[in-house]
């Protein structure tokens, strides 16, 4: 499985303060939701595309490819939103439906486009955070923000275990394929069910070994975040403050103009 966390390690700003990067990303995300304006969404999307490519060094092609991941199911969702009901045919499209009509009106279409743009903009905000910040730093940031310890502990362990299990599942899927495990639909079905149960058993067998390994290095129930987190420099603090101000002003202006 190709996961997105791989991208963060080739980022130009991977060692920059995660709080700074989270500040850039999360505040833009919040404003996108609050302002809820198509032009504002487009602006945020463009801003994040710039941050991802110029600041973090992600190739543009890669960024667009990533944007295509949620595109498909966002489209279905938003098309559904755009559909209205009417006793008479109105709008661009109307389909007879149990005595009424399924219609797409201008209002419906605008709502759908708005939701679509807002969603893409929000996704791009998170993408910036993901492609610039290794997971270790994100979890460190959560820890720094006084997330309950048990929760960060579980998250840190789960992150690593996910890849242990994925590795196992992928190897197993290859071995199944090599013995025609996916040759018919029935075979695939059987394969996936034995795979899921086998991974379950494997998970618990591996957990014993991992626990031994943890104990052998003195594990006493304290699985703390021990990494190093870069702090925010004064320059970054200034940049972030200006950034917030610009966002705020733009947001207010957009709201005023759009009514």
């Amino acid at each position, binding site marked *: 499985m190709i996961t997105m966390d791989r991208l963060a390690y080739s980022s130009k700003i991977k060692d920059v303060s995660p709080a700074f990067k989270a500040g850039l990303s999360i505040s833009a995300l919040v404003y996108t939701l609050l302002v809820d304006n198509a032009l504002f969404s487009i602006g945020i999307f463009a801003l994040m595309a710039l941050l991802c490519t110029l600041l973090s060094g992600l190739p543009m092609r890669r960024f667009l490819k990533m944007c295509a991941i949620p595109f498909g199911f966002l489209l279905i969702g938003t098309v559904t939103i755009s559909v209205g009901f009417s006793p008479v045919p109105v709008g661009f499209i109307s389909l007879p439906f149990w005595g009424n009509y399924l219609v797409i009106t201008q209002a419906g279409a605008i709502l759908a486009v708005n939701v679509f743009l807002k969603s893409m903009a929000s996704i791009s905000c998170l993408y910036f955070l993901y492609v610039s910040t290794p997971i270790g730093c994100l979890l460190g940031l959560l820890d720094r923000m006084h997330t309950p310890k048990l929760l960060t502990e579980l998250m840190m362990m789960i992150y690593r275990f996910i890849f242990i299990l994925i590795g196992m599942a992928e190897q197993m899927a290859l071995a199944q394929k090599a013995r*025609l495990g996916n040759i018919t639909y029935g075979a695939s079905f059987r394969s996936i069910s034995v795979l899921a149960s086998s991974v379950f058993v494997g998970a618990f067998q591996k957990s014993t070994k991992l626990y031994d390994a943890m104990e052998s290095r003195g594990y006493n129930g304290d699985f703390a975040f021990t990494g190093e987190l870069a702090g925010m420099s004064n320059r970054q603090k200034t940049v972030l403050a200006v950034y917030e101000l610009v966002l705020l002003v733009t947001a207010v202006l957009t709201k005023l103009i759009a009514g």
Partner: protein
Amino acid sequence: MKTILSIQDLKYTYPDGTTALKGVSIDIELGERIAVLGSNGSGKSTLFLCLNGVHKALSGSILFDGKRMTYDKKGLIEMRKNVGIVFQDPETQLFCVDVYQEVAFGPHNLGYSKEQVHNCVMQSLDAMDLMQFKDKPPHFLSGGQKKRVSVASVLSMNPQVILFDEPTSALDPIHAQRLMQEINKLSAEGITILMATHDVNTAYAWADRVLVLGDGKVQAAGTPPVVFSDLPLLEKTGLQIPFVLRMYQKLCEKGMLAKAQTPPRTIEELENLF
């Protein structure tokens, strides 16, 4: 000699962009024993997965018994029936509830009738001396037993070629030796065997031919004494000279031993020259 597998300019790139095979060509004769050498990442595992149709080659072709391999359903069934892979780690090769079902997995997928499946399973279990473990879950067997189950699970499809990926790597010497005997038995029955290994001594003693892979290409292919006498090649690919060959050459060089017609392959053969 009849060519059973003919590989022509095979190329393969993983979805993440890593090019694992950069044009591999080799003909494999029926009944041959081939040792495949090469460091990790040299493309051994990828080659095996291509030969069995799990990975679809980007370009180039694989001919089985003269017929070009196709990736439609019929072609894949053909290929996976005829070429079996025994993976390195039995832990991830075994996934069924018990040994019987594990061994039945392949024949079942070939669409055999219940009786046919049963016969195939029984034969392979017998061949691998696993009858007593028939109803046990594979997860609870020992390493050596698991390995034998993984061989049986491939054998039950009656393949003509079996690819072994470092079969003895996790086994202790007793079980490793036993497995090698089983492999030799299969070879004696006419099954063509390719074995990926890191152990130059085993490769030298066992193989009819050695295939050295490196950087996704064939670096050398030939009989063990020829390949392992090629010092620049060994240097380049990080391989060591097998003990027996090195000793033999040294002894000849010092005049302590007369040159034999063919260099000895095992320590016993070497000792017999004394």
